[in-house]
């Protein structure tokens, strides 16, 4: 009977945080023994884990993935402890671009209100009387890039592959003319 550990801010794009909580609830509703931890506790708990399974927002041409923020940390922890990192992604997530392309690297920044309430933020504004710019900067990136070296296996709707094979699927599904629109 597998044990599941779900992390706190495991989230899909559109919705607010606490998705990890919802996921943990769904899993326990199915009857799985679930443990909920925060993102910061990943390194502490990774040694108790046999396998990491995640989804992805996109799969890049070099086999890397763009996923919710915090995924890179999880991948690094898994690599450090020799835990297999498995990405579950269907072929409609394939993207013919490379992550070094600056268009891709521009991370979407979500509203900082997720982190800091506007009321508390306005208190910080008063702390710097002279300048019009606030001394406190709140950044809430939506995505993380995980390089292909940290990924062990991709499970797609047409089978399991390793990251260096993903370019083949892209060549199969995309015509070369459509790589750059």
């Amino acid at each position: 009977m597998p044990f599941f550990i779900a992390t706190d801010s495991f989230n899909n794009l559109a919705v607010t945080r606490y998705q990890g909580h919802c996921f943990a609830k769904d899993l326990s509703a199915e009857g799985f023994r679930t443990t909920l931890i925060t993102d910061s506790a990943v390194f502490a708990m990774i040694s108790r884990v046999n396998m990491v399974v995640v989804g992805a927002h996109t799969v890049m041409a070099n086999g890397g993935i763009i996923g919710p923020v915090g995924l890179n940390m999880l991948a690094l922890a898994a690599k450090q402890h020799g835990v297999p990192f498995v990405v579950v992604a269907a072929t409609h997530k394939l993207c013919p671009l490379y992550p070094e392309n600056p268009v891709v690297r521009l991370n979407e920044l979500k509203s900082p209100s997720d982190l800091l309430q506007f009321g508390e933020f306005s208190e910080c504004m008063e702390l710097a009387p002279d300048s019009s710019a606030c001394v406190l900067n709140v950044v809430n990136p939506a995505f993380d890039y995980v390089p292909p070296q940290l990924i062990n296996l991709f499970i797609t709707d047409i089978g399991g592959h390793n990251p260096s094979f993903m370019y083949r699927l892209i060549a199969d599904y995309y015509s070369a003319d459509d790589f750059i629109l």
Partner: protein
Amino acid sequence: MWWRSPSFILDNRQQQPNDTARRDALSIPLSSPLPPSTTMADPNPNPNHKISAYYQTRAAHHGVVSSDWLAQAQAAVGHLPEGDDDASNNDQGAPSGKPFSVIDEFNNWRKQPDLAEAVAAIRALAAVIRNSQATTMMELEIELKKASDSLKSWDTTSISLTAGCDLFMRYVTRTSALEYEDFNSAKTRLIERAEKFGEISYKARKIIAMLSQDFIFDGCTILVHGFSRVVLEVLKTAAQSKKLFRVFCTEGRPDRTGLRLSNELAKLDVPVKLLIDSAVAYSMDEVDMVFVGADGVVESGGIINMMGTYQIALVAHSMNKPVYVAAESYKFARLYPLDQKDMGPALRPIEFGVPIPSKVEVETSARDYTPPQYLTLLFTDLGVLTPSVVSDELIQLYL
């Protein structure tokens, strides 16, 4: 990788007679007339096949004036009028007294410094088809094969030459035109394909430059090693599209490629900094990406390039900097080196400026092999490829 010949004394003994012959040749003072070993019969200016003519040429085209270069220039000047005569004879028409020599045609094309050696070979082979007197397809193919073999044997150390000839043969003969009953139309079709291949190879640089523009962002620092005309084209295109970037050039001993490259970049108003080869690790933290060309791309996805590339790739990899390679597709070769010494030797005499005692050995190899795990991406005219894709593309090209 750990193999060392236990009988290195034997190896030395074998090398010594060659070395002494070579040293005699090099010690001929500059004021003397053409070295007697160069004749029309052997167009390779250096009859000692251990010294790579390929690298000699590159040095001649791109290096700062050195005594070797001067000696070579003298030899070349000695050849030039005869070379021109051959060309004009051939142009005048088929019935010329001299038989068509593919090597001469190749040498004519090769003299232009902007033309890659493989492209010169491709053009020479296209000329073979044009000037061929064959009346059947078999005969033509045999002629082509002979011409290709003689080109390849002219310099066995040049990978792009061998690969270019092989790919030309496959591209040109892989057509249904060979099934035509009419020999002349089939021949015309072959000539068309040959010219097209020549055009593709010639334009490859522009395609690569276009593909790599996305990867150069404003404010980046690029480290460049060796004088690659493809990389120069990439940087030229980026400078012309008003991107702001700066370049670190390694000095590139012994060919001093860095000096020539920094010259070219200064003309484009690109901020350039010259580093000695040993200063690469020191400056690597300021660098955003490494850009190199390639003499050959091998089946594993690694590259063979000027000596020092492997070192730089190792340093870049250890500091997580991407290493980009710009190589045309005709450089893809059917080779799989297992370690640095697994390739044919390509030696390039190094002059230190001071006399070296004869007991001291010098490592004169001109190139090294960079394994694929240290490379990030390859920019080719077939597209942007990761090193693992290279073997796939090779299969498609060759089979």
